[in-house]
Structure formats: C-alpha cells, structure tokens
C-alpha cells in the first residue's frame, strides 16, 4: 500500500526539498503551489494520509487551506503538518486551533521531519502495518 502525501508550498525549491525527504521515506507525493491548488488535488478524490502545507502563499494561504479542509468530513482522516517560517507562538497556536496536527519551522532537517512523522505514527512502514 502506498502512503500518500500532498506538499503545498509556493516555492518550487521548497516543494522539491520536502518532497525529496518524503519520497526517501517511502511516500507517494503530489505537489501544489498554493492552498487553492491543494484543494483542487483533493477534490479529484486523491486523498493523502499526510499534507505538508506552508503558511504564507499567494491565492490561498496555509491557514485558509487548513480551515477549508476541516469543513469537509471526507478529509477528516488527513494529518496536516504546517511547514513554515512563521515561528511566533501565536501563529503556531492559530494553526493548531484551525486543525493542523503538527508544526515544523523552516529551516528544518530531514531528521526533524522524520521525527515528527514517527511521533504521528506516519512513517510509511508503520502505516502499512
């Protein structure tokens, strides 16, 4: 069984970095350039186990995306991890209150992402069991 992840970031370079880490862990990854594009992917019926989403993006930011996802019961099972340079405590609280499960502050290492996924029970070999 493939474990799927959607990476949403307006920076192509950052999407590549996050996707590369997740693919290295065994994820099947799709990418989107902002929140609206991310919703478009979900609306095709491709619902991943994990979404990694940036905060500051054009068109639809990460917080708006999280809020939109949480209004749809069909997407309730998705784990959402904010991956962002927004590191103020109040911002983290807002993201978690909106429905994000985890928060990773840029810059991050591959180990930091792996550790967060392990805490969430979302390393692909664990999910597949």
């Amino acid at each position, binding site marked *: 069984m493939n474990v799927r992840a959607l990476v949403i970031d307006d920076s192509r370079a950052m999407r590549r*970095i996050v996707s590369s880490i997740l693919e290295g862990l065994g994820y099947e990854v799709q990418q989107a350039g902002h929140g609206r594009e991310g919703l478009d992917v979900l609306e095709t019926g491709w619902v991943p186990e994990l979404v990694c989403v940036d905060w500051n993006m054009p068109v639809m930011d990460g917080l708006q995306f999280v809020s939109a996802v949480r209004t749809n019961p069909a997407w309730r099972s998705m784990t959402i991890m904010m991956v962002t*340079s927004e590191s103020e405590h109040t911002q983290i609280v807002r993201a978690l209150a909106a429905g994000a499960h985890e928060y990773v502050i840029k*810059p991050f290492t591959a180990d930091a992402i792996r550790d967060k996924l392990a805490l969430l029970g979302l390393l692909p070999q664990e999910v597949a069991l």
Partner: protein
Amino acid sequence: MSTIDTGERRRGSDARPVITELIDEGTVQSIAEDAWTALVGEDEVLVPLPGELPADVISSWVDVVGPWTGSVVLTTGRQTAADLTRALLGDASPEILDHEDVADAFGEIANVVGGNVKAALPGPSGLSLPDVGDAPTVRNPADQCRVDVLWRGEPLSISVQGALPALSQH
C-alpha cells in the same frame, strides 16, 4: 487635580526602536547559518568575512510589519544567486536556469531567514511574500543590522533594515 501637559508622553510614544536595539549581528549570522545548512547543504558554511560585492548584484527580501517595520534583504552577485539556486534544486536543477528559478530559490532563502529574524523581534508582526530584484533603499543607516559573509568564497550580505526614515530631531 490638574495635570500639566508637557508633551513628554506624546514624544515618548513617538519613539520607535531601531533594529540594533532589537537584534545583533551574531543572531542574524546564526539564523543565516542555520538556513544555509538546512536548505543549501550540510557542508555549506558562511564565512563571516566581508568581500566586495560585484557590480551586477541581485537581492531577495521579505518585509516585516509590526512594532519594528522593515526588510530582511539578501544581496549577492547574480552568478552566486544562480549557484545557490542550483544547490537548492539539486538533481531537479534545469540545465539552463531562468529568472523564475533564481527568484524562487533565492526568494525562499530570504523567506526562511526573514521568518526567523521576525521571530527574534518583538511581535506580533506580519511577514510578506518574498520579492526579488533591486534591494529596497536603506532609509535610515542607524536602523540597519548588516552581516557580510562569504559563501564558497563569494560575497553575500544580509541586511535587516528599517523601512522608515530617521525621526527628525527638533
């Protein structure tokens, strides 16, 4: 009881901090080093030595709006910015880089450095999307914290600079 309005309170509230009262060069350098290690590569170091920027430079920056308002600006030669882009994109780097590739990667570095600079400043503050081009003008030299480094021997500057001119002294 009557109170004499000396104007002191109004003058006091007009005062705004300059960046050197809020963050020092060591903190900016440390933030940039962490960004480089995570984004550019584990073995990539920033050497804290000034170098002369070439004539053909490019800047990337984000704006911080809050109790302190200004920009976090990275400036380097165009070739160095292209080398940085290739380092970030790794195997996904195209054979020929276009301006959008450089703007995306160099802008993301400014976003990460700027976000962490913002976190070290009094908040709450907002952070803009990154921009790339000619650096915003330094409006008040006293409201600037600048770090000059070398990356792979090439000069690069990181400037945390206020957006507002100096308050006039009367």
